């Protein structure tokens, strides 16, 4: 699938990784801009117009997690974090800070490109308020209301719900949910996804999330905006 016209900002301090990754992404059809640390990255995002930001977690002056947190205050541009396999804590913190996905170094160029493409494919303007049946989700305020009454969700449950909303119309694989919501597909048991879907169903209603046998879950397409 083509990536034409997709602008990616790569924020990475190591010059070799930055150059090779930028080349790689360019080969895959992206327009790539670069920044050497969090400070430059923040400026670039403010001044430019990027569809996806690929951010390294460990950088001088401002690291990837701080950058993510700051950017999230004024933008919901999709952010992919470049993480370390042996530092799982970073991933969870990153997701909590507002990152959308992550890939561990050293990565396959194909995998990186595919994940960037997936993030870019997300609807250009994330509706701040979305509806699913009688559930209203305000992504800006991070609130959920069902039939007029507010529903309290944990941050994990909210992230899972957002993921389902992002993929509205399509099913999401359990492994991807593990990676995007829990930040770890290697060490976490997939049953945690099932448990949380059950909890969401308990809070939002049984007919909001549909199980796709042997694969994952999908939001039921009943009313609401897509």
């Amino acid at each position, binding site marked *: 699938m083509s990536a034409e016209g997709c602008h990616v900002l790569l924020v990475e301090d*190591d010059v070799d*990784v930055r150059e090779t990754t930028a080349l790689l992404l360019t080969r895959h059809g992206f327009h790539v801009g670069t920044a050497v640390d969090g400070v430059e990255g923040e400026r670039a995002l403010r001044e430019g117009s990027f569809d996806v930001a690929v951010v390294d977690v460990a950088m001088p002056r401002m690291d990837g997690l701080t950058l993510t947190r700051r950017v999230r205050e004024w933008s919901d541009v999709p952010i992919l974090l470049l993480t*370390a396999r*042996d530092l799982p804590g970073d991933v969870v913190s990153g997701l909590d800070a507002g990152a959308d996905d992550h890939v561990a*170094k*050293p*990565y396959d*160029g194909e995998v990186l490109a595919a994940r960037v493409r997936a993030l870019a494919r997300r609807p250009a303007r994330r509706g701040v308020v979305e509806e699913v049946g009688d559930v209203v989700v305000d992504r800006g305020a991070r609130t959920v209301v069902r039939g007029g009454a507010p529903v309290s969700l944990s941050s994990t449950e909210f992230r899972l719900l957002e993921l389902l909303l992002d993929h509205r119309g399509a099913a999401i694989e359990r492994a991807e949910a593990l990676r995007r919501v829990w930040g770890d597909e290697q*060490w976490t*048991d997939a049953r945690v996804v099932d448990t949380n879907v059950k909890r969401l169903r308990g809070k939002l209603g049984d007919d909001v999330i549909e199980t796709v046998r042997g694969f994952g879950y999908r939001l039921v397409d009943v009313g609401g905006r897509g």
Partner: protein
Amino acid sequence: MTPWYRSIRTRIGAAVALTSLLSALLLGLAVDRSIMVGGRNALRAEALQSLAVSAAAYDISGTVPSSSSVGSDATRLPRPLRAALRPGRAVTWFDGHDMWAAQRLEGGRVLSLRAPGARLLEQRASMHRTLGATAGGVVLFALVGGWVVAGSITSRLRRAARAVGAGSGVQDVVGRGDGAARLLGSGPGPRDEVRELVDRIDVLTGSLAARLDRERAFSADVAHELRTPMTALVSAAELLPDGPEATLVRRQTVRLRRLTDDLLELARAEQPEVVVLEPRDLATVVRRMVEGQEGVTLSVVSSDVVRTEPRRLERVVQNLVANGLRHGGGEVRVVVEGRTVRVEDDGPGFPAELLRDGPRRFRSLGAAPGSGLGLSIVSALAVGLEARVELAGGERGAVVTVLLPGAAQRDARE
């Protein structure tokens, strides 16, 4: 576990009992001698006095009291007494029961009497009985006392041995790396040689734990440092135009990448963290892991419910399978039996040093190139899973057995 007949306790107890028995015997002997000497002296004095009375009576009346006898024939007297007879002097002799006294009177007649020593002997027998009973009691107390004191020493020694893991290796004690090494503790207790030994062991395990920690930190650091250049290298290799050189470079980067990934996995596996174990049916979990994998056959002899963490267990099995496939000539058998998972191959088996010393980082097994980290990763993961890993196998192939904790138990390694 030392059997009772070889225990220090038995030796100490026996020594104490023997010593007290000997002491009692010596004491008894001394008392006995003293009684006899004193008793004989008293009996002698009594006999001499009676003899003097009899002599005086004879002088006066020509007769003697019935206890004595007078006669010209001295042959009826015991020989030692006869031999000692001197004119004008009384002599005595103790025949073992009674005290004899005799005197040669003027005119050649011999006056003699026999004083019964029954009372003395009775006294002696009574003392023997008392001493015997006392000695018996003393020996018993000594035995019990010795047993108790020795027991306090041996129990401390045994506790220390248990804490060190009695043969399962240093890994047991220092494996968790969370300060578990100081198991022997500096608790209350006499500051004696046993304490000295236990403290030295503590120091040793502490330094071993520190060494292991440094080793871990080192390989984690290496992995960490390698990550960035590896990332650039892997990406650059992908960017190369296709061709024979590119293929060569890519092959090498794959190898380097595998090594780095293993190092990172090892660093991750060794991070001390609480692993939540849940009851699972072993065969079901393993089947899901290996089904569909080429070159791997699964057989289930029997299956138990084990307490485990499926993701880590999967890493263990996958690492063992990968090892088997790489070194073992193409076919790997995974066997589930009860609480164990066995991974067998038909390769050259484990080298003797590995079986003896256990897995060490970077010691590659056999001729085929591998990162050599697989077994270290499996060991590290096993700690978190509370599982026990055993390596076996010679020329017929390698066998790795993983024993998992059962649903009811606390620890498979006990």
